[in-house]
């Protein structure tokens, strides 16, 4: 019986050139063949061109001496060091500017985003003007503006702009005090670590007690007291083992303290102010995405406004905010490559600029540069996927 049915309903097999399976296979082989052929042509051309120009391929050049100096280095570097060390130095510079930029962009972005939702008319309008102005002007133009039109016009060291005799701003950069850690500072640091651990366990205990007895314990005040008080007490006992080295005007320039070079200041200013406009819009959208009913329901249950914000609104808003926010962090990191235009020694300027010119190894250098950015992107998107999974609404 069953054989009969299957005999009847079984469709006739299509001819092989109409069979979807074979067609898909054929098409893919065709595409793959095309890509491989294109790759072969490109690679053979490249090899021929390189041979003609007498450039050896390979990554051996990374071990040769660089022979140039770098304006700003976070780790020890001199002209005798290798290209590889120069690469590391420039990579650190890129990460530094991206890190500082992300820090400030987040703060400004959140403040402006909340300000746009404020019921204070003038505040929300000012936030709107800020966002609509800066996000519609190219970032490179803003970097140039801050660097050439503002920081390059600053007075020389003798007429520096002075804030409390501790911070000095002039054409050479921003000078700030440098902390010297005297012996005994280790105790203060340890006190801080102990305080952090204590706060962690206290929070767990308070949470458990609230679950069991319903009694609340104000962790926030106690935590603040522990985190600030304990290191302070230890510092007082050890006699404040920290001294600040203030920048001082000697002759024509300042000595001592930390110098932030104007390139870095301009870059951070432009990156932070530009990206903050996007973050502000993301924050605004995120808060608006939490429906008013949520807040009203929380009030109806008797929650305080602060608690409502902390336990009801923000967790839901964050679910909307975090993915595009990570995207903006990624954009900021990629945009930090514009540093090359004002000669801040980041990876593009030092590696894809100077080292490329000196060695002529275009393929390797560009591949490494792209690889660095690609790695950062993939790491951030991997983090985002993990976070999305963790935060996703658990539905039936």
């Amino acid at each position: 019986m069953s054989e009969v049915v299957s005999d009847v309903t079984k469709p006739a097999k299509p001819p092989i050139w109409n069979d979807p399976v074979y067609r898909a296979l054929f098409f893919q082989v065709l595409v793959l063949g095309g890509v491989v052929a294109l790759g072969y042509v490109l690679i053979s051309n490249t090899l021929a061109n390189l041979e003609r120009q007498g450039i050896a391929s390979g990554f051996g050049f990374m071990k040769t001496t660089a022979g140039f100096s770098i304006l700003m280095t976070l780790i020890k570097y001199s002209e005798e060091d290798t290209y590889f060390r120069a690469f590391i130095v420039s990579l650190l510079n890129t990460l530094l500017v991206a890190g500082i930029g992300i820090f400030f962009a987040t703060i400004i972005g959140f403040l402006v985003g909340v300000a746009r939702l404020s019921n204070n008319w003038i505040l929300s309008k000012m936030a709107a003007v800020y966002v609509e102005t800066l996000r519609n002007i190219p970032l490179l133009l803003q970097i140039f503006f801050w660097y050439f039109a503002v920081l390059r016009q600053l007075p020389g060291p003798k007429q520096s702009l002075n804030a409390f005799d501790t911070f000095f701003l002039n054409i050479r950069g921003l000078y700030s005090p440098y902390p010297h850690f005297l012996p005994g500072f280790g105790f203060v640091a340890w006190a801080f670590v102990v305080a952090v651990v204590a706060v962690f366990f206290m929070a767990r205990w308070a949470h458990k007690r609230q679950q069991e007895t319903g009694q609340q314990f104000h962790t926030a005040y106690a935590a603040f007291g522990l985190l600030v008080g304990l290191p302070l007490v230890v510092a007082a006992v050890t006699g404040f083992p920290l001294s600040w080295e203030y920048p001082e005007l000697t002759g024509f320039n300042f000595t001592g303290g930390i110098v932030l070079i104007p390139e870095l200041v301009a870059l951070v200013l432009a990156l932070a102010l530009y990206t903050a406009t996007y973050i502000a819009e993301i924050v605004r959208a995120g808060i608006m995405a939490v429906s008013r009913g949520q807040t009203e329901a929380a009030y109806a249950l008797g929650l305080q406004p602060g608690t409502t914000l902390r336990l009801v609104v923000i967790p839901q808003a964050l679910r909307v905010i975090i993915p595009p926010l990570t995207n903006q962090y990624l954009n900021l990191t990629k945009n930090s490559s514009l540093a090359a235009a004002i000669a801040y020694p980041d990876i593009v300027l030092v590696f894809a600029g100077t080292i490329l010119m000196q060695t002529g190894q275009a393929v390797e250098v560009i591949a490494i540069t792209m690889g660095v950015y690609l790695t950062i992107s993939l790491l951030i998107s991997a983090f985002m996927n993990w976070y999305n999974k963790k935060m996703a609404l658990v539905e039936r």
Partner: protein
Amino acid sequence: MSEQKTYELGRHPDMAPPVNMVGFVGWMRANLFSSPINTVLTVLCLWIIYISVPPLIQWALIDANWVGTTRNDCTREGACWVFIDHWIKQIMYGRYPDTELWRINTAYILLVGSMIPLFIPGFSRKGLLSIFLLAVYPVIAYYLFVGGSFGLENVETPLWGGLFLTLVISLTGIVGSLPIGIVLALGRRSEMPIVKALCVGFIELWRGVPLITVLFMSSVMFPLFVPEGMSPDKLVRALIGVMLFSAAYLAEVIRGGLQAIPRGQTEAAQALGMSYWKIMGLIVMPQALKLVIPGIVSSFIALFKDTTLVLIIGLFDLLGSIQLVGTNPDWLGFSTEGYVFAAFIFWCFCFGMSRYSQHLEKKLNTGH
């Protein structure tokens, strides 16, 4: 004491609301001074406006110098717009020969003229016009700009510059990347594993690197890729880089549109016996593209802003021209004016387009 009127019970006429609750005063109370914190914020904002806006207007308009020919005509108390006026040709057209400027202007007029009907709601031949704009217009513009045939003098691309170059790069970039983006988006949603993997790899590679490295690549590595002596000129190399870069972003925008089209559309078309390309070309793509027009406009704005990066590989777009004329020994020290002017032009373009895209989003949002 005024005389007290008495009314019958329930006959009291409606009284005007208190003065401080309605009108301007009421509005101020509600929106500016509703709480102590709000009052502080309002005062702070007013203070910021007070210290920033009047000096700005003073600098840019009142103390500014508008007429003159040399830098000596500027008093340096306010902005020196003479600088912009003197270099306006360079900023707008680069070093394009004076006698040939009509070619660029003709192309502008043709572009604007043929785009106007697109914004007229009742115009019925929008499809034809779009095909003209996307397929025929670029050819006309190419012959107008490059010349070398039809009796037009050849103008080398190194002479191109200013706002003209910015527009050429961004418009070519977006129009050229649209077909590549569509193919990539379809490839990414394809069921064929090899095609899908290639498209995903391509898209993620370009989206993961900054445009500046792409431009470096196109200017340094591209000559290595082609046989000796066949290397295209700098502008074409930059254009290819920009196109591939923006195609990756457009592909993701279009993929968003494709995902929004219900499966039922494809299945119904399959049931009618349509082939893959017919389904995509006649059923899915038209709906998906309509959905993502605002997204495409946003990508265009981003691309328009990003074209400033070409100055790093030595092409003089709007910003590059301003940088260039700012280094002229006779006109040193006017970079602020130059940047403000460039910022104003970019802002007008980008703000206009973003407003238009928001308007489109509202207009196209026909669901629920």
